[in-house]
């Protein structure tokens, strides 16, 4: 396990220092003993110049052994620390590079590109393995698919030379794959340290791939939640209206049976009004669904499209003002779109306004969305509980809340209504 090996390596420092202490002690003793042996051998010649020179040479060699030994150990410790620092820095930079991506394809490509750069390999490949243990596809770096076919890289068999490295990528998500690197740029073999670096990088790559999978699932869940919410809204709205239609139809039947034509006509007019109302609601919902159909479309574009259609159907003037390109994830864009649609639906149904403005302001780290109309207004505190679902305020607040944002409504009778949503957004890209 790489973690155990790493711990053992990390503990080499104190063990080496202990060794160094013993080396210093024993080497010093050995030095003294050897010096004494040399001195006693050279004793008769010590008064002569040759004797003195030989004695000096013996002392020098003894010191060389002592100092050289200590120096070698310290130098080796220093080199290992420097190598480890360089490795960790390269690993950290490589990992940062892959954590920035969310799409699985982009993550896989960056993994193999960064792995090649980390160990200075010319060619890299990442195999994606399916549920039946077959290789589904390859993501390569430094080599085209045709070249890969021609040279048979990577080989399905375990690599037999140190000119190729292979490590598995073990994820919690369904993804399984192997990372292959070949041909160091200098032409030498890969070292054991480089193999260990690659194993550590593979662990980080697995985290990035898991992150990408979670992001995908989050998007899927958001879409499923949205569908469920729409289904509930349609059910609540339609169910109430259909129940109302049924009651009215029974009443009209009764009135016709008893010859009360005028009252029957009045109820039929009310029925027609209710049908027109629910038709407008459903049409608005369908337009809303169509506006949100393309998650890659910018928010401003989707809003403008929806506003144009809404304006044409309601006859209420609506202006979209955009200050700065909104920086939102696809789920956040959808939620903002739904909040604006709900606000405009309220304008249509309750405000009696002649004009409404939708303003998007992208600040440094927040997006502010304002929907303000010149309609009848209301006193927010006076809305009864039974009226809140009609205005969809709870849903709008909930949507803003799921994005970590705030929802505020300002209104007073005769002074129009302003709905303000503020959401945290991604920081601006580096220049």
């Amino acid at each position, binding site marked *: 396990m790489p973690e155990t090996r790493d711990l053992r390596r990390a503990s080499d420092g104190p063990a080496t220092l202990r060794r160094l202490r013993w080396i210093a002690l024993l080497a010093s003793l050995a030095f003294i003993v050897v010096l004494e042996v040399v001195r006693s051998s*050279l004793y008769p010649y010590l008064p002569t110049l040759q004797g003195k020179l030989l004695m000096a040479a013996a002392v020098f*060699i003894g010191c060389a052994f002592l100092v050289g030994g200590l120096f070698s150990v310290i130098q080796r410790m220093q080199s290992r620390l420097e190598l480890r620092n360089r490795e960790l820095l390269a690993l950290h930079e490589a990992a940062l590079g892959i954590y920035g991506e969310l799409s699985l394809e982009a993550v896989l490509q960056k993994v193999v590109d960064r792995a090649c750069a980390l160990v200075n390999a010319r060619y890299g490949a990442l195999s994606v393995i399916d549920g039946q243990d077959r290789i589904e596809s390859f993501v390569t770096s430094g080599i085209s698919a045709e070249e890969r076919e021609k040279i048979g890289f990577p080989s399905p068999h375990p690599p037999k030379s140190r000119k190729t490295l292979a490590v598995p990528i073990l994820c919690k998500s369904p993804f399984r794959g192997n990372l292959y690197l070949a041909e160091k740029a200098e032409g030498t073999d890969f070292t054991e340290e480089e193999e260990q670096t690659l194993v550590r990088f593979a662990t980080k790559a697995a985290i990035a791939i898991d992150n990408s999978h979670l992001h995908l699932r989050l998007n899927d869940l958001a879409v499923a939640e949205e569908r469920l919410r729409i289904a509930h809204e349609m059910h609540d709205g339609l169910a109430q209206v259909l129940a109302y239609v049924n009651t009215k139809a029974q009443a009209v039947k009764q009135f016709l049976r008893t010859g009360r034509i005028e009252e029957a006509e009045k109820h039929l007019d009310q029925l027609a009004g209710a049908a027109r109302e629910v038709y407008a609601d459903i049409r608005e919902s369908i337009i809303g669904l169509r506006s949100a159909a393309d998650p890659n479309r910018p928010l401003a574009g989707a809003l403008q499209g929806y506003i144009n259609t809404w304006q044409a159907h309601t006859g209420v003037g609506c202006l979209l003002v955009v200050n700065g390109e909104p920086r939102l994830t696809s789920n956040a864009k959808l939620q903002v779109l739904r909040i604006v649609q709900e606000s405009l639906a309220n304008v249509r149904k309750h405000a009696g306004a002649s004009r409404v403005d939708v303003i998007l302001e992208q600040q440094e780290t927040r997006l502010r969305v304002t929907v303000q109309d010149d309609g009848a207004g209301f006193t927010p505190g006076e809305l009864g509980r039974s009226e809140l679902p009609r205005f969809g305020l709870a849903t709008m607040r909930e949507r803003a809340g799921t994005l970590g944002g705030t929802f505020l409504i300002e209104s007073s009778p005769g002074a129009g209504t302003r709905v303000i949503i503020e959401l945290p957004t991604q920081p601006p890209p580096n220049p």
Partner: protein
Amino acid sequence: MRYANLSALDRSIRIVLGVLMLAAGWAGLATGVWRIALQVFGWFPLVTGLAGWCPIYAMLGISTFKPRNRRPPLL
């Protein structure tokens, strides 16, 4: 060897030189102080040749050692 700084050739030369020096010293091919010198300093090339490590090289930052690529177990 983790601290080795002598190549195989370097080590061989040292061992041979050390043995010759010691043999010359003990066999009496030299006399006087030179005999003592051979007997004492003949150990230096022999010991460093056997150990594969020379303290003078270490202090001067010289290495003639060429590492053989080891093959750890592959994944």
